[in-house]
């Protein structure tokens, strides 16, 4: 008679560590989380880019520029791969990429660039002042640096923010993490982890 409850208890204790590790974010976690500052930028989807539009979804928010030769293409490729891994849950994950180079990155250019990775990605651009204000709200560093001749690049923060379906900035994923890690954290934030 006592065997079944005993077995159930043993199973519960055996599975508890798995459940705990499964629900823990791999990214760096903010405690307490804060409300994600609004963007109010020109979106590549043809309207004002506001994060409020994506309540109920996980937003993965990154900053970069279309001429970036190393960090941005890798990050965007990883995020596209993560969305593929999520399968049906991909519709509940929105990647938002905000430019740090408004002189070059028009909404049209960003749309074409982001579509190379995933047509579902949305970009944000705007005036230098508007973008600077957004970067300040998120603590993003972006410094224009001269390269050979008239060429230039930006040294910019390479991490991305994970914003939960309630619009709270929950975590920060440093550069270099895999698609598996992003997919894992997206599932956790969607309550499916």
């Amino acid at each position: 008679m006592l065997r079944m409850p005993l077995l159930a208890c043993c199973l519960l204790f055996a599975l508890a560590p798995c459940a705990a590790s499964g629900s823990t974010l791999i990214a760096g976690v903010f405690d307490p989380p804060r409300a994600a500052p609004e963007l109010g930028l020109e979106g590549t989807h043809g309207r004002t880019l506001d994060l409020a539009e994506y309540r109920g979804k996980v937003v993965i928010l990154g900053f970069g520029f279309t001429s970036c030769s190393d960090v941005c293409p890798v990050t965007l490729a990883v995020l596209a791969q993560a969305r593929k891994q999520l399968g049906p849950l991909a519709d509940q994950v929105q990647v938002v990429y905000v430019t740090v180079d408004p002189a070059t990155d028009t909404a049209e250019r960003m749309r074409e660039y982001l579509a190379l990775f995933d047509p579902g990605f949305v970009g944000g651009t705007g005036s230098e002042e508007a973008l600077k204000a957004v970067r300040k709200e998120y603590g993003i560093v972006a410094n224009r640096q001269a390269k050979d001749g008239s060429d230039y690049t930006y040294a910019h923060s390479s991490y991305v923010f994970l914003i939960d379906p309630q619009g709270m900035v929950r975590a920060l994923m440093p550069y270099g993490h895999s698609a598996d890690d992003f997919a894992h954290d997206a599932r956790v934030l969607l309550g499916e982890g």
Partner: protein
Amino acid sequence: MNHTSARRFGVIACALALGMPAWAALAPLDLGSRAALFEIPHGTWARRMAGDPVEILPERIRLTLGLQDLLELRNLDEVPQMFGPTLMMPGQSFRLPFAKAGIYDFACTAHASGQMRIIVDPYPATPWARLAWRARNGLDRLTGRATRGIPQGVNE
């Protein structure tokens, strides 16, 4: 010093010379906490406004997988602060775990170089690796080349 005393001293010196490396190679490693904690104390903003260049986060932080592989930042001040790689609200903490050994560079406005580097060493699994880890750790502490944070719960 007579002959007997000299022999006794020699035996002790030999025992120490052999025993210390043996201990360093074989004794288990334990840093007490997995977290390397850095805090912005209350009043930091006011001190900075008064011209005191308060340095909290070093330019280089060294962590070790399995021993101390979690960077924890806390803003105990009354205003938002850029702390290492991120902006932190008053009373907010940020815990960043590392699962892979490597060198991680973050843009950081608090340092003249504009960067903060976190070096994550692999877990020293073998006796030789433990010996090397203890030697490097001691050297880093002596030269101040890398900082491992303050013990959990201790304010500056």
